[in-house]
């Protein structure tokens, strides 16, 4: 089942094909599990070269003026490829600075559109003109040129730190999930420029954008994991027949498929809602993220079991997916916290019988 996308001029399936071609070409998902490590800087350059960062930038600024739904197939393909880079922070930041009229915002927007800025986003407490703090684990922290800081105090305006300037050290951090690249970002008296847009405006946008990006990433990876598992079960023979003919395994695979399609349906719907900032877009994005990471987690967890001994090996790829899933589960807040974040408004909507 695929979604209908009437909002954009660029065909979603063309975008998907282009993304798949690039990622097939450039991402060797085994690389970080041998001698190398996930770095992602090269892939970020490739993505910029293809102009993905322009997709949702306003046309009058040289962008392509598409809505969020143009990014969905790209995020999904990145998950499918286990891409070591992230695009979501940059694109979420663009959603925020598109609303901003400050000098710093305009400058960053220009650089972003020109392709020379790559952004990581972090929520923080109060901001001063100089920042002294450490972010212990930021995805994409090595590739980033700027840090967008979102104060949780609703009235306070957001800040930008140029990571190329003094007082900034980014150190790679090794995690069990090697399919992504993480860094510790230490700021010592690093200068921070202020935007006009407030944390109260920016945080819901960034959270929703990143929730949806995570949903699509998880859906792409989960589907790949399920497909590969199903293929394996069709070839592995035991008791004189393919193990995929055993109903105990088939029915689990079918249940995973249902869970995946259910999550996908919500991701399509929530992406359209976010693109239009329509209805309960912010809850829906979080809900789509929950269903997708839950499905991803369940599928990859079972995938190891359905492979038997070979699934338990470093050599075989089951664990690549499982480890990405375990990280996706908690990367932007544990699922329990996401549930807690939205429960009041979900319950209020239920009582309004929407």
């Amino acid at each position: 089942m695929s979604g209908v996308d009437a909002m954009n001029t660029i065909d979603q399936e063309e975008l998907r094909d282009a993304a798949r071609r690039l990622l097939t070409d450039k991402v060797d998902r085994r690389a970080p599990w041998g001698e190398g490590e996930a770095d992602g800087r090269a892939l970020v350059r490739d993505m910029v070269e293809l102009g993905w960062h322009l997709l949702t930038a306003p046309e009058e600024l040289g962008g392509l003026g598409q809505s969020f739904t143009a990014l969905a197939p790209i995020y999904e393909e990145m998950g499918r490829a286990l891409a070591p880079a992230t695009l979501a922070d940059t694109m979420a930041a663009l959603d925020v600075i598109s609303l901003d009229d400050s000098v710093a915002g305009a400058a960053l927007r220009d650089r972003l559109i020109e392709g020379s800025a790559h952004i990581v986003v972090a929520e923080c407490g109060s901001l001063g003109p100089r920042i002294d703090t450490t972010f212990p684990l930021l995805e994409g922290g090595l590739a980033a040129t700027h840090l967008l800081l979102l104060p949780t105090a609703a009235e306070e305006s957001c800040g930008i730190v140029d990571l190329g300037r003094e007082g900034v050290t980014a150190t790679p951090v090794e995690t069990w999930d090697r399919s992504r690249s993480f860094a510790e970002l230490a700021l010592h008296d690093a200068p921070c420029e202020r935007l006009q847009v407030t944390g109260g405006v920016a945080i819901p946008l960034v959270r929703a954008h990143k929730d949806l990006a995570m949903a699509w990433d998880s859906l792409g990876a989960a589907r790949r994991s399920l497909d590969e598992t199903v293929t394996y079960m069709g070839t592995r023979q035991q008791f004189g027949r393919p193990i995929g003919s055993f109903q105990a395994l088939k029915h689990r695979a079918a249940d995973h498929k249902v869970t995946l399609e259910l999550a996908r349906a919500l991701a399509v719907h929530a992406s359209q809602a976010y693109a239009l900032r329509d209805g309960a877009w912010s809850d829906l994005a979080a809900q789509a993220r929950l269903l997708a990471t839950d499905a991803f987690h369940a599928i990859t967890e079972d995938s190891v079991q359905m492979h038997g001994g070979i699934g338990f090996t470093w050599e075989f790829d089951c664990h690549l997916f499982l480890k990405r899933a375990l990280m996706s589960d908690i990367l932007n807040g544990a699922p329990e916290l996401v549930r807690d974040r939205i429960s009041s408004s979900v319950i209020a909507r239920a009582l309004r019988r929407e």
Partner: protein
Amino acid sequence: MREDRKVTDLRVELRAWLAENVPKDWRTQQAGDNIEGFLASQREWLSRLVKGGYATPHWAPEWPGGGRSLAEQVAIFEEIARADAPRMSLFFVSLYHAAMTLMECGTPEQRARHLPAILKGEIWCQGFSEPNAGSDLASLRTRAERKGDRYIVSGQKIWSTLGQFADQCLLLVRTDNSGPKQVGITFLLMDMKSKGVQARPIKQITGDEEFAEIFLDEVEIPVENRVGEENEGWKVAQVTLSSERGLTLVELTERLALSLWRLVEAATANGHEIDRLDVEVRRRVVDIASRIEALRAMIATLMANRMAGREAVGDASIIKLAYARLSRDFTALGLRLRGMAAQRDTRYVLGAGYETGNWMFDFMNSYQYNIAGGSNEIQRNIVSERVLMMPREKLA
């Protein structure tokens, strides 16, 4: 997705009609009502819908109320659900299964005889399942012998919804044993008042007597009541089984979504304040709410694909499984939240579907969607073999 003007207009008109016509107090009135009361209110509701022109949107255009697009049919089901109108349980098989079978496969005489009668409230049941033919329906054994211009039918049908109230029955019988089991099945229309027919209600786990077993002892059925050719009834049965085209799920999903508040009500019934609710309870409500929202999106996509003629194999099975599991988890949570009060609350509303608000009844009833119309296990076979293309198992 933006909606067709025609559909939007229909919604406006229908909302006004529903505001006038939905019996205001049907839930209170039917709570604890006896079966006669239920039958009477269903008849009254059908006649209003027929008069309003909303009972038969799926019928061919030459019939009253017919000729509506699938998009309009979906809108009608959604609006009826949103208005919290009664379901049309008593007449669903008549309006959908019987009428569509006759429209697609029946003779002009059969249509002329039954379709006007259905509009006036003729009740039909579906006599497919047998004690030894459930999931493996094609192994059915009720025998029909041709004698001149009649079939003589003997055997037993079971689980026939509302069979004890039915005037007519869509009957599958075996007319030939020599070939593969799907060949040799014949589709007949049977008058339930025929000599030799005995329908005996079966009490369900809910306490309701909603389905029946039907005993057939040398029942004579005129050959003119056959639908399709002799021994080719299996094809006709597929038409019957797909006649509602997903509309039931449209309605049920919408009703489920609009009864989410009942979960919150169940959680707060013991005097808990909403914002003091146990955090685990709140999380589980969020999970159910998310799955409902996803199911709504999924059914909307399925119907859109259906309208565009690009439905994929197995889509319907995926949705049915998603709905079936959700209906069980939803009601299980409500039951858990309501606690001992649910154990003591033994009154329920006939004909309200599973979202009666009586959690034990609703939970018990949710098995229906997990068993009937192709059980979850059968749907999983379809999804694994026909969607995921896993190796098929050879079945007898």
